[in-house]
């Protein structure tokens, strides 16, 4: 098993405008996920709940850490299948029913060398990481505005006001499973990871998020305060955040050593001579 020690916190809020929360999250080390559902008649809630269930199954049943990308792809396929099945069953009632969801997930995997973070993204939920105290957006939104910005059609300043800013280009629950983006990071280059829905990233500026994260030492505080800030900033959408800290890498003597920390604490408390 992994010797990596993970601390985490999570928070979600319905916001001030919506009448239900279509965001879902799960955090069962070493698997973490946030999904932002969309669709009427509870479609969004169900779709995002399916994603969270499937990733929780991964955590419960265990997975082959050396096959991270394949495992995640299989999980996404399972999500897609279940959402489609559910949609089909609802449509037989002559309802116009559809559902979709974004997903961002982080899980520990092993490559040829060591434990790494495998991150996956579909849609416009986000993954940030803090490295040496600097906040950095890792995932790239699958949204029209992002694509237009990368193409140079619009500037970053236009994003917030663009009429198509909420239209995403990839999601689970569409006619076919789109290709997900994967990222592989060494643990040492992400002392803190943040998974959040666009109810957070759309309400808070990058610097505001960075400031909150820098102030909140405990990941549970960090998650709470980010979501609270997003609601305070308008709360026009459901806001969800999961914050994960890598607190110990006992395999690597050069890095921050949790065991060493505990030892010194016990010394201070007089438990050791």
């Amino acid at each position, binding site marked *: 098993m992994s010797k990596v020690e993970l601390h985490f916190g999570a928070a979600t809020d319905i916001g001030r405008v919506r009448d239900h929360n279509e965001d879902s999250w799960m955090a069962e080390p070493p698997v973490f996920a946030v999904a932002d559902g*969309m669709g009427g008649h509870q479609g969004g809630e169900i779709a995002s709940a399916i994603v969270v269930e499937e990733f929780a199954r991964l955590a419960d049943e265990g997975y082959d850490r050396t096959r991270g990308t394949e495992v995640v792809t299989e999980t996404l396929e399972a999500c897609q299948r279940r959402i489609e099945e559910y949609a089909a069953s609802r449509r037989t009632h002559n309802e116009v029913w559809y559902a979709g969801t974004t997903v961002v997930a982080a899980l520990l995997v092993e490559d040829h060398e060591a434990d790494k973070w495998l991150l996956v993204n579909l849609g416009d939920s986000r993954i940030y990481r803090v490295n040496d105290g600097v906040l950095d957006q890792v995932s790239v939104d699958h949204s029209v505005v992002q694509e237009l910005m990368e193409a140079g059609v619009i500037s970053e300043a236009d994003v917030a006001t663009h*009429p198509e800013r909420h239209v995403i280009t990839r999601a689970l629950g569409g006619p076919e499973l789109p290709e997900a983006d994967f990222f592989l990071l060494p643990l040492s280059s992400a002392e803190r990871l943040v998974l959040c829905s666009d109810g957070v990233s759309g309400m808070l500026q990058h610097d505001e998020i960075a400031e909150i994260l820098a102030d909140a030492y405990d990941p549970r505080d960090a998650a709470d305060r980010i979501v609270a800030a997003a609601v305070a900033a308008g709360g026009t959408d459901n806001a969800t955040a999961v914050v994960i800290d890598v607190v110990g890498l006992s395999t690597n003597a050069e890095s921050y050593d949790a065991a060493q920390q505990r030892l010194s604490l016990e010394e201070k408390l007089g438990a050791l001579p």
Partner: protein
Amino acid sequence: MSSDLKSYRPGTWFGIFGEHATVLLPPSEKRRVAALWELVDDGADFGEVLDALIASGLRDLPGFVLVSNTEGTTKVVLRGPALATFALVGGETVEVNGAEAATWVERSLVDVDAMQLVVEEPTDGEQADLVISGGLVRVSRVDEPPKTTGGARSGKRAASTGTGSAKAEVAPVAVPVAEPVAVPVAEPVLEEPVVEEPVAKPVVEEPVAEVADVHSESVAASADVDVPEVGVPEVGVPEVPIAPVPIPVPLDPFAKADAQASDVPVGAEPVAEKSTQAGPAEAAVEEPALDQPTYQEPAAEAVPEEPVWGQPEQPAEPQSAPMPEAPAWGDAPAPEPVPEPVWGAPVPQQQPEATPYVPEQAPAPEPAYAEPDPNEDHDGMTRAGAWDPNQFARQQPGIPGQPPAPSVTARPVARLTFSNGDVIDVDRAILVGRAPEARRFSSTDQPRLVTVPSPNQEISSTHLEIRPGSGVDHGTAIVTDMGSTNGTVLVQPGLAPEDLQPGIPVQLIPGAIVDLGDGVTISVTNP
């Protein structure tokens, strides 16, 4: 006998003609050709070339011919299906057949009057013999002194008897043949006779183009040296790649091995991506122009500064055309109607001028989504769009006009030996650094991360990438500095050390050493 002028018949083998040595390699050995051309063109002698040929062992070299002439002695080494026939001054004829030996056949002959190397049956009946002095061409047979179509043999024999001078040989050749060599003897010998077509042709043959892409500088440079000597106008060289583009695919021996390479028509894909950005209206207008401009691609390719890899993240196809028609998933009544200009506006883009190839993906695929009720209370904000996923496909790093690199190859194209002893085969992208990260890959093309120690932090976290090459780099590994802080030094065999330009891929020749700093080096060999 002089080593100055020879003639050849087009074929599939590679013929490398230099000042002191001539090397013929079978079509399967394309990956070696670039390196050998460098060596041979730099004036390497028999020993040096032979060393290079057999450096990686004989077993994976199915055949070759090496001929060198120094001070009246002709040395020849043959392996595999090659036949060399030498006519000696005394009238005697010596045949050397590579197929007869398990390893190779070597002969050393004095006073050779004429030589003929046959490596394969000529293909389309009687072919013209083309004269060559130095260069890289596809051949089936080589004659020295040059042979011209129809009855040149006797003329050659007669003329060259007794002298070793190139001038003496060339001149007579021109006389008996009425048409191909237009200018007769009277002219200053080396300048004119050859210029008509024989030499110009060989240069235009496609192999040169392949090498030119990789080592454009060196080829250009050497062309400047060699070519004028034979009378080809210098301008000819930069233009060389223009004609050959269509040829490489059918001739490429690797094409069959790699479906991707052979299926994709040259110039179809990457070019298409770029030009799409011109917007629908222009695209339609430009369509008719589709035919010839594609062929100019290589010209751009040969320019090493072309920032092909500069913006790998840039989505290639903002595709203005289909968007307005494609209803967004959920078809929410947009608060403000989508302003037409946004979509219609052509994306400003620094395009290479000659890429008006227009892809046929103009009509947007019908969205297969169920029509949702616009009045539904869904999330209200986030909506999925019925976008064609390909619409925003990211631009593949690579060379316009060439098929994109296969992300994972069936067999490794190179082997990397790290200074700490690790050995890693290149069958996918490999990211090397102090704490390398792989960003935005798909489920099928996961790169391999290789962490190297850097006690002095001289190496950047993701320092460089080595991956299988595509197009002209197919079958080899290419290295790209990922914008490292302290840079990367590349030492290729026979070349001065070079600093890698961030984002600009460079082909790795076996024997190359990549220096990342902090004492970390990677040496490149054949797998």
